[in-house]
């Protein structure tokens, strides 16, 4: 992953590339002044690691959800986790809390939204994925409404812009100290998903069949929902709401390695990391004004998805 970070790095200024090499391999590359090195290690490196984490986590959870719901149109925020996390963060920003607290609130909001979704589906539609998805849509819409409400009450000169910028998605405020915990959570979740790779593969081929093949589908559902929620909530707490990655990347990965989850998961993680790194590089180097990450992923991801669909059409019909 780090080597991929290096591979993508030339998109940044040349000076920093050689500096990066020097920092990783002592003696190699051009030696930089200590100021340059501090800039590199404390600003550049966290940002690259955050991009990798965000891209990998979103793509990995997208792949897991698409397999679990047997639906290639599902994205990681289907159960309302992104909107819930966005609402949590908005509350934090509204009251002017420090970024660490905002992160905690975002994470809690995401987890709470999914808990509400699961509770609703348990109450009215035991064991039905359709009810689960519909409940997720409802909870997501309500969380969006609550986000709008915080924006309405926010101070238009101070807190409102911060809420808006956070929701657009950005890796601006990332430092090593607020990155490591979400990254660790996401990493642990990926590990769990990889361990249950075969039951997820069997579920992807059909729910009833999975049951007759001896898969405990409720256990697998629970594990997938918990891990993807942790991953997505962590990501929102780092970078705000970044759309499209979790939908598009698993499609691309599936074209390369097929739908078997033991290959799909690593491929999605890898492609997602590279994709988000590239998008972030574009976002901060195309102009002197930095583009918001969420806007760019949609602008790049949308047409990309259409192209993918056009290519895949033959296989689906």
């Amino acid at each position, binding site marked *: 992953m780090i080597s991929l970070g290096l591979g993508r790095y030339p998109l940044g200024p040349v000076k920093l590339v050689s500096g990066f090499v020097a920092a990783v391999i002592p003696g190699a590359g051009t030696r930089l002044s200590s100021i340059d090195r501090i800039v590199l290690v404390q600003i550049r490196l966290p940002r690259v690691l955050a991009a990798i984490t965000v891209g990998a986590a979103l793509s990995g959870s997208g792949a897991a959800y698409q*397999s679990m719901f*047997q*639906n*290639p149109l599902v994205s990681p925020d289907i159960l309302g986790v992104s909107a819930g996390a966005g609402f949590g963060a908005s509350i934090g920003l509204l009251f002017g809390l420090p970024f660490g607290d905002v992160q905690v609130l975002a994470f809690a909001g995401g987890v709470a939204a999914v808990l509400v979704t699961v509770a609703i589906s348990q109450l009215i539609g035991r064991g039905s994925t359709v009810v689960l998805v519909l409940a997720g849509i409802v909870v997501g819409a309500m969380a969006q409404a609550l986000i709008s409400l915080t924006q309405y009450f926010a101070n238009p000169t101070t807190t409102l812009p911060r809420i808006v910028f956070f929701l657009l998605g950005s890796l601006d405020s990332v430092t090593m100290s607020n990155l490591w915990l979400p990254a660790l959570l996401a990493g642990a979740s990926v590990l769990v998903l990889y*361990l*249950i*790779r*075969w*039951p997820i*593969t*069997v579920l*992807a*081929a*059909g729910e*009833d*069949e*999975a*049951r*007759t*093949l*001896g*898969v*405990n589908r409720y256990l697998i559902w629970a594990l997938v929902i918990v891990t993807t929620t942790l991953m997505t909530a962590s990501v929102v707490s780092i970078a705000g709401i970044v759309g499209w990655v979790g939908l598009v990347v698993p499609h691309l990965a*599936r074209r390369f390695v*097929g*739908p*078997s989850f*033991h290959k799909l998961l690593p491929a999605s993680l890898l492609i997602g990391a590279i994709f988000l790194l590239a998008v972030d590089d574009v976002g901060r180097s195309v102009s002197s004004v930095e583009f918001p990450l969420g806007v760019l992923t949609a602008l790049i991801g949308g047409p990309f998805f259409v192209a993918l669909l056009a290519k895949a059409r033959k*296989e689906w019909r």
Partner: protein
Amino acid sequence: MALSIRVDGLSFSFGQRGENCLQGVSLEVSESELCCLLGPNGAGKTTLIRCILGLLKPHAGSMSVAGHDTAALSARQLARLVAYVPQSITAVFPFTTLEMVLMGRTPYLGMTASPSRADRRLCMATLERLGAGHLASRPFSQLSGGERQLTMLARALVQEAPVLVLDEPTAALDYGNEIRIFQLVTSLVAAGSTVLMTTHQPNHALMWADRAVLMSAGSVAASGGPSEVITGDRLSRLYNVPVRVTSLAPPADEQGDQEQQFFCLPEVTPPRRRRGAADQPPRIP
């Protein structure tokens, strides 16, 4: 012979106040038997097999498979006893045929394991035994109906379960494939498997089965040897169309040492065409 499937007083309904879809259904299939489940649409055939497979929870009654009470079995334990061949399967994702067959090994894998090389070899060998080895790397979604059914049978075989449950396995197949599937199924039965299958064709039961069960409105109307159960009267009443069961007289030189083969025919004639229309040669534009 030992009982392989036993269903005793099974009742099931969808929803709380819904009408009973199954009402006191009892059924016994011995080891190494092919049992055909017949009945009109909505008689409860599919509901019954979904109960046996553990996909639906019955309200009353008990079931056992190979001597084990199914209510006490986990999904994995049940999957080692009963293999299921669905009527048709549409995979959303482009799994290869070999991957679909590999899924049959799931009941023998730990939750965190994936299929081993040995599993892979077994699946490949099974596909080849069914004459479908060439399909292994093709996407399952691009196979024809007959090829899919073969794949599902291969998956059921690698599940190594003593009981196979098939839901209208030949519904989507052409005449030749239908016969090939029955040949395969009867050879499995001869080798010791127990098969319960639903079908809409009484002739399937008369031709191939050791036992036939007729279902009507959620309960068993008749059960026993196919030629005793399937009579013209019963079929006529059950399906509300006149049906006759007859037999072909075997050729003179084979008489005596061959069982009589019965088959059923609808006792209706197509409406006569209007006079003149049949006499005219077809018009060629």
